[in-house]
């Protein structure tokens, strides 16, 4: 088990490295740079030159890459390994030491600052949406499968197809229109902007839960409905298959209570396809949160990601991509670990 985890984590290194290399060099071969335009005006060439020098963008790409990876001051004792100008104003310690460098467009802010400020909101949005999806989707799928071909099943199946067909791109504005503008039940765009502020992952005492959920409700719902529909479809399909298997007949034959048969024996196996999609779903959530944050005006990481691409803020692009990739690979690992628990026949050392 431990060996499996270690091997997998070691396997992440080439993936992460490839992501960094591809993004880093792709960002630099894209024509145009971060200082082409500030607002609508283009800067005088001399200013651009100075700015580029400040952020080392005048260096050859390989040197920029080394400095991005290991920092621009790199000494062992008093011996300088790389002569990468330690006195430059915008120096970083390099990705390998956990420093994602300064942002090109937000003066005086590092990428670490920006991610630290915006990631908690995105993470809360994503996690709550997945939880909502599971809470609605799994029971709906189970009921559908157990009462196959009843009106309940038909309704649930139809609603689920409807749910997977409405993109969050459509869901979010519709929710705002109905619940915020017409009915006035929920605020449309102030999550994280009005108290209770959510600046980090940890709660302060006396946290205003009611207010928090009122603000979070619509974004989470807009993102979670599609997920719940996906979960419901998968759950129904796999449970229908599982309850026809021999071991379920055996469980019934030895006189187990129906509830035990379903929830202890069938469900565990039936959850495997659901678990399988949760991994890639984290990747899908990235898209989801991008859209949701844009429409609901949330100051999350997705919004910064899109903005940094149009701004050519390479450091922020790379930093956010790195965070996304790390989440993705670790969620895939968790999925693999969950397989082993759900189905003992699946062996992890394979």
């Amino acid at each position: 088990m431990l060996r499996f985890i270690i091997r997998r984590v070691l396997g992440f290194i080439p993936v992460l490295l490839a992501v960094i290399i591809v993004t880093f060099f792709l960002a630099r071969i894209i024509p145009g740079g971060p200082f082409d335009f500030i607002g609508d005006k283009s800067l005088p060439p001399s200013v651009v030159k100075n700015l580029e020098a400040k952020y080392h963008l005048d260096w050859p790409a390989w040197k920029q890459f080394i400095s991005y990876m290991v920092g621009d001051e790199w000494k062992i004792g008093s011996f300088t390994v790389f002569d990468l100008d330690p006195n430059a104003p915008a120096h970083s310690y390099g990705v390998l030491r956990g420093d994602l460098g300064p942002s090109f467009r937000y003066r005086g802010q590092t990428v670490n600052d920006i991610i630290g400020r915006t990631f908690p909101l995105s993470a809360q949005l994503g996690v709550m949406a997945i939880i909502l999806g599971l809470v609605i989707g799994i029971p709906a799928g189970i009921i559908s499968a157990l009462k196959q071909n009843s009106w309940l099943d038909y309704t649930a199946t139809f609603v689920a197809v409807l749910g997977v067909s409405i993109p969050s791109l459509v869901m979010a504005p519709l929710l705002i229109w109905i619940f915020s503008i017409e009915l006035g039940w929920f605020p449309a765009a102030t999550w994280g902007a009005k108290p209770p502020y959510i600046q980090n992952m940890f709660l302060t005492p006396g946290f205003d839960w009611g207010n928090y959920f009122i603000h979070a409700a619509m974004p989470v719902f807009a993102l979670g409905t599609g997920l719940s529909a996906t979960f419901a479809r998968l759950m129904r399909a796999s449970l229908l298959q599982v309850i026809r298997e021999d071991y379920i007949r055996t469980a019934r034959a030895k006189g187990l209570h129906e509830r035990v048969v379903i929830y202890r024996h069938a469900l565990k196996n039936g959850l495997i396809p659901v678990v399988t999609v949760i991994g890639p779903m984290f990747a899908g959530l990235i898209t989801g949160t991008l859209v949701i944050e844009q429409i609901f005006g949330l100051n999350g990481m997705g919004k910064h990601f899109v903005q940094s691409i149009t701004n050519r803020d390479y450091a922020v692009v790379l930093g956010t991509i790195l965070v996304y990739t790390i989440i993705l690979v670790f969620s895939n690992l968790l999925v693999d670990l969950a397989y082993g628990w759900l189905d003992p026949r699946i062996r992890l050392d394979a």
Partner: protein
Amino acid sequence: MAVAELPAHTQLARKPRSLMSDSINRLRKNKLAVGSIVVLILIMVAAVFAPYITTGDFAKQDLMANNAIPHWMLFLMPKGAENYVRFSDKFIIGADDLGRDLWTRTVYGARISLAVAIVASTVSLLVGTVYGLISGYVGGKVDTIMMRIVDFLYGFPFLIVVILLQTYFKAVARRGVGGGFGQAMVSINESMGGMFFLFIAIGLVNWIGMARIARGQVLSIRRKEFVEAAKAVGAPDIRIIFRHILPNIVGPLIVVETLAIPGYIFLEAFLSFIGLGVDAPTPSWGIMISEAAPGIRTYPNQLLPPALALTITTLAFNFMGDGLRDAFDPRLKE
């Protein structure tokens, strides 16, 4: 000599039916799937004949009629809208904030979504199937290496790759390249309103899942007797792959691909939404939604056409995909 008439009891009670006609019968009984196919055909016809059922110019601005709505749409608007809204019955379903006809833009938007659906699924099907066929049929070291590559790519965050590729293509297109092949690509892209690079970006990354499925299918029938028989009579590998194996695996692959189409349509809408899709003023439902969303408080009517069109199209593809799967590959039935 005349052929003797067979005695009655040896004749078939009913006409023999092929597997195909069985499947089509099953599909016909599925009302939702048939309805969806009809809807999709209608959308396709509308997209193809867009110039004849619209004003024909999705970029034409009528600045005296920006945000205009026809009178019949007033019921959709928020309270008090008659005080600020501009009426113009010239437009069937109103105009957007630049005074462009929403009906025209929505119908032309179908062209983008359908084109992405068709091209992305074809590319992914072709590349994925060929890759999976080779990997599964040749086996051994080749298979190991090819699947290692796929596994590695599978762990890659694809959305991000698509976004980066699109950023690159768009920047190159804006700057222009110094002639030759690149310039040819850029001009193709321009003549297609920015669709060409979108196809490449989406197509490049979506064959991987298909390659895995195709390989699995090949492995499951590679050792079957009819393949052995073909080998025994000395058929070349190419012939075995394309004449014996491919026809047997192509059904499930097409079904899986159909079910993936809504994903492509979402992806295009999403990329257009964040400004990395087709180029303005080419209308895409994603762009239209992103343009209408900020004004939803005052002009909710502008959101409805693209939102409805996008939802109906993906819904129809989903129902059709489910129907095809149930009809053509009952083993995959949920």
